């Protein structure tokens, strides 16, 4: 083997080794994709524990630890606890549903074909104008939210803080 051939073999081996190391590092970082419209990352493993960060649908968090039904995650440098039902390990799962909701069909088998998205909902409402007012009523109901502070006061007044609240 000439010195040139030997150099190339060594360089190729080094490249393969580097790629392997990079792959292992990338694989080691387990990722989760948020499926809720908005979710709170909590300081402790408690539903109404103080919020340390807010994540939105499709945000990517790094999984650090699992303590069912909680997972400890890292998001933009902040660490805290998320309910595991707020996330999925399947990246494609999130992409297809949210893209369908925007009326974009990313792949031929997108969830748009099942009809359960915002675009079909709009079409459904147009086809049944009598339901328009009820959808508005439902939107009003959905817009009414109760901040954590209010819920915590309610729990304290009802002596309910001994459970999974905080």
């Amino acid at each position, binding site marked *: 083997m000439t010195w040139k051939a030997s150099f190339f073999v060594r360089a190729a081996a080094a490249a393969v080794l580097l790629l392997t190391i990079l792959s292992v590092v990338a694989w080691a970082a387990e990722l989760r994709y948020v*499926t*809720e*419209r908005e979710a709170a990352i909590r300081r402790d*493993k408690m*539903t*109404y524990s103080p919020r340390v960060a807010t994540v939105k*649908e499709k945000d990517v968090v790094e999984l650090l630890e699992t303590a069912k039904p909680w997972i400890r995650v890292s998001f933009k440098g902040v660490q805290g606890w998320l*309910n595991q*039902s*707020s996330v*999925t*390990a*399947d990246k494609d*799962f*999130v992409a*297809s*549903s*949210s893209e369908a*909701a925007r*009326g*974009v*069909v*990313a*792949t*031929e*088998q*997108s*969830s*748009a*074909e*099942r*009809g*359960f*998205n915002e*675009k*079909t*909902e709009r*079409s*459904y409402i147009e*086809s*049944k104008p009598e*339901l328009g007012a*009820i959808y508005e009523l*439902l939107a009003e*109901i*959905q817009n*009414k*939210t109760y901040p954590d502070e209010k*819920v915590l006061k*309610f*729990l304290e*007044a*009802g*002596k*309910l*803080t*001994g*459970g*999974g*609240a905080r």
Partner: protein
Amino acid sequence: MTQARTSRAVPLLFLLAAAAGGLGLLYSPGCKLVESTADSIAGATSGTPVGTVFSGIARTAESFRDYSLAEEHYIGRAVAVQILSQYKVKEDEQLKEYVNLVGLAVLAAPEAGKTFSGYHFIVLEGEEIQVVSTPGGFVFITEGAVKQAKDEDELAAVLAHEIAHVTLKHGIGAIKAATRKKSAALLVQGVGQGAQEYSRSGGNANQQQLAELTAAFGDTVQDIAGQLLVTGYSRDLELEADKAAAGYLQSSAYARSALASYLRGLAGEQKSEGSGWFNTHPPANDRVSELGELATGEAPGRAVRKQRFLGILGGG
């Protein structure tokens, strides 16, 4: 020699491919591997009959896939609208807020599953006893069902049962059967004539397809609303929801026994041919028996919460 090597190499390659496929199946959730493989083949053979067939396989795989929280949300909204078209919302701000806060207190139990846009507890007018929930976390309870509770813990128990149906995706389970039929019909159409048109439109559903989807969506929603309000879930699913609800009550510091005590109260009201809740749920006494040990368990502060409940209901 070369031939011998080749003949050994071929099975080896198959073995490696099979192992890779097996690992892929273990790793991939649901039908992802089937979908991605079918997608790849469809992409590589785009515009040919083979591509069309594999597009169909990918679509079939999709129709059996789990639903995302966002999909459940749109399904749930449509079903909720059907319920709201049959019932009137109770206009009592204090009661609305109270019932929502009790529901949110139950949701302190971390085992309760999240929904796309949270849970919403809606009080309906009427003395009929009816409690029902849709995918996506819309929980409906009639004024009659609220009054049937003797205290806050019993109200929490009824809401916990509905949260359990949402968490365990019982509504979605009911939808899937209907959806498969609709998806299959759309699939046949897609394979037979729509696939190339679909491809030309850059993947966007055209107007005709949208109209078909809309009709299928509407039919499906009607089926689900009918199941929720008329036929109800199977006995097994109801008992499963009861057991999960007992767990949520305990985790959220409500009395676990409250579910059994609410059911015992209903047993006295149960008629052979009732309406609403009585038509859609198994006999209350059976449910109490099935709860077994879960029918017991007190929690501190129940008397305090009872006073709060009676204050809201006008009995305190």
